[in-house]
C-alpha cells in the first residue's frame, strides 16, 4: 500500500453517468489482488470539501502498459470531481487496499454474481481467474442498459455470462436474484463471489443458505480512513453461538463469507 500520484491516461464516459478512468501506475498493477480497491482524493490541492478519500474497486489492469482502471458512477461531489478530470491530470490515490482474494488456490470453477456497479470488482476477479486457467461464469443483473458497454469487455475476455435487466432491454428480462437457484447442483461445484446492492445480497444469502452453499460477498460501507485505523467502516459479522462482531470492510474485507454477514 502506497500513496501515489498517478497520471490519468483516459477518463471517458462508459455509459450514462458512468465513467472509466485509466491510470498509469506500475505499483498498483504489480501489487493489486482481486477484490482490492484504491482510495482516491477527490478535492483539488488543499481543498477540504469533499474531505475524505473515496474508495473504488480496481476494475481492470493492463499489465503490459502498467495501467489500471476504475469504473465509477457519478453520485455526488467526489465522483463529480473525478469526472471533471482529464487526460494528463494526476490523481492523488492510495492502494491497493483491503485484503485481496487469493485466486491461486481454490476451486477451478468460479461463479460471479453481480448487480449494477457491483460488477466493478467482479471484472478483475474474472480476469485474474481466467489468467489462472479457471473457468469463469458470470451472472449479472441491471436495472437498465447503462452498463451495456461492459458486454464488449466480457466478449473480449472470452468469458461465459448471462445478463439480466429489469426492463429486458439488455440480455434476459428479470432479476438475477430471482432467476438463480432453480436447483443447487450447479452452484455447489462453484466458488461463488457476489457483489451488488444490499437487497440483492440479502436474497442471495437467503437462497444459498437453504442449500448451505457458501459464497464470498464483496461489501461496501462508508469509509473514513480506508486503512483500518478509524473503525468506521464496520459490518456486523456473525460469530459462533449467536455472538457477533464488527469487522472492517477496509481491512478484514471487502470480501466476507456471505452467510456470516448480518444485514440490518
Amino acid at each position, binding site marked *: 500500500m502506497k500513496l501515489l500520484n498517478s497520471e490519468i491516461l483516459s477518463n471517458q464516459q462508459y455509459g450514462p453517468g458512468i465513467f472509466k478512468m485509466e491510470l498509469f501506475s506500475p505499483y498498483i498493477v504489480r501489487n493489486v489482488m482481486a477484490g482490492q480497491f484504491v482510495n482516491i482524493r477527490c478535492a483539488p490541492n488543499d481543498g*477540504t470539501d469533499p474531505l475524505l478519500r473515496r474508495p473504488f474497486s480496481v476494475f481492470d489492469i493492463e499489465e503490459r502498459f502498467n495501467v489500471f482502471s476504475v469504473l465509477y458512477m457519478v453520485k455526488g461531489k467526489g465522483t463529480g470531481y473525478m469526472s471533471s478530470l482529464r487526460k494528463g491530470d494526476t490523481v492523488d490515490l492510495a492502494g491497493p487496499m483491503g485484503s485481496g482474494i487469493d485466486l491461486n488456490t481454490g476451486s477451478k470453477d468460479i461463479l460471479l454474481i453481480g448487480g449494477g456497479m457491483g460488477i466493478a470488482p467482479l471484472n478483475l476477479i474474472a480476469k485474474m481467474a481466467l489468467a489462472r486457467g479457471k473457468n469463469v461464469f458470470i451472472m449479472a443483473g441491471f436495472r437498465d442498459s447503462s452498463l451495456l458497454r461492459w458486454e464488449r469487455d466480457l466478449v473480449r475476455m472470452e468469458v461465459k455470462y448471462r445478463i439480466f435487466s429489469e426492463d429486458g432491454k439488455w440480455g434476459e428480462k428479470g432479476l438475477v436474484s430471482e432467476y438463480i437457484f432453480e436447483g443447487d447442483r450447479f452452484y455447489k461445484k462453484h466458488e461463488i463471489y457476489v457483489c451488488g446492492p444490499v437487497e440483492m445480497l440479502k436474497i442471495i444469502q437467503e437462497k444459498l443458505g437453504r442449500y448451505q452453499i457458501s459464497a464470498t460477498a464483496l461489501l461496501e460501507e462508508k469509509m473514513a480512513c480506508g*486503512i483500518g485505523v478509524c473503525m468506521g*467502516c464496520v459490518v456486523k459479522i456473525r460469530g459462533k453461538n449467536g455472538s457477533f462482531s464488527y469487522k472492517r470492510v477496509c481491512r478484514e474485507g471487502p470480501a466476507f463469507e456471505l452467510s456470516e454477514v448480518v444485514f440490518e
Partner: protein
Amino acid sequence: MNDIIRPSLKVQLGKIKFKNPVITCSGTFSHGEEHMVFYDIGKLGAVTTKSYSLLPMKGNPPPRICETASGVLNSIGLQNDGIDSFIYRHLPWMKGAGASIILSIFGRTTEEFKKIALRILDIKSEILAVELNLSCPNLEQGGKAFCAVPEEVKRVVDSVVSMLDIPVIVKLSPDFETIDRSAELARQSGAEAISIINTVVGMAVDIDTAKPLLGNVTGGLSGPAVKPIALARVYQLCQQDILPVIAMGGVFGYRDLLEFLIVGARAVGIGTANFVQYDIGERILNDLTAYLREKKIDDVNKIIGRLKVEKKQA
C-alpha cells in the same frame, strides 16, 4: 545564508517531555502500525493510542461515519479490544517501532478507571503519559459525559493519580462550558496537562429515508470544520494558564499547528487528517522545521503563546 540548521523542537508540558510538538490523536491512528507503512512513526512527538476500556467493547452499530462540509461525523462508540490487548499485543509493537506513547483510557465509572490504572502499573515506565478520555459517558451520572461535571473529572483524576506515578493528561470535550473549572480541578488533583478538543456533538439526516445518517443518531464532529472552535477553546484555556495544553481539532497542515502554538498550546494533535493524508505527521514535522529555519527561529518554544492581541477601540 541560513544559520539555523536544526531548530530545537523539544517541548515540555509539566513533567511530560516531547521531542517535538507533533502528536497524533486518540482513535485516529490506532497504534501506528497502519501509518508506519507511510512513514516512521518514531519521529512523532508522541502517538496517542485509541482509548482503551477495561474489557473489549464492540462499539456502536453502523453506519459510523458521515462526511459533512469540511468535516466528519463519527459514532464509533469506542470499539476496542480492552486494555490487556494493548499491554500484551500493541505495546510491544509500539516499543519496537520506537514510538513515544500516550496511552488513552476510559471507563464508564470511576471504579473502571481505577481498575485500568491497576493494569497499567506494570508498564508505566514504557509510556510517556496516560490520557483520560473524559468525554465518554459516565454511567454514574446517567450517561452524561464525565467532563460535563467538573467534580466527576476531579474524582477520576484523583483516583488515577493516586495509583500511578506517571503523568496524567485530561482530555476534555468542547461541548461544555465547564472547561476552565474542569482544568482547574484536574490541576489540583495532580494532572499534568489538558488535551482539548474532543469531537463536537453533531448530527446528519438522510432526507430520503428520514433516518439519521449515523447508527447512533448523534456523533462527534471533527476535521477542518471544527478548527475555529478548537482554536477559540484552546485560546481561552491558555489565557487562564491553568495547565499546559495539548491542542487538537482540524489540523491538516503545519499552518494549523502554528495557529495552535501561537495561541498557547505546547503540543498539537493530528486527528482526522490521518485518514486523508496518511503521511501527514511526517509532512507537518518537516514543514514545521522548514518554517522555523526560514524564519530563523532556533526554538519552537519561541512561538508558543506569541499571540499579539491589540484590542482596538471601536
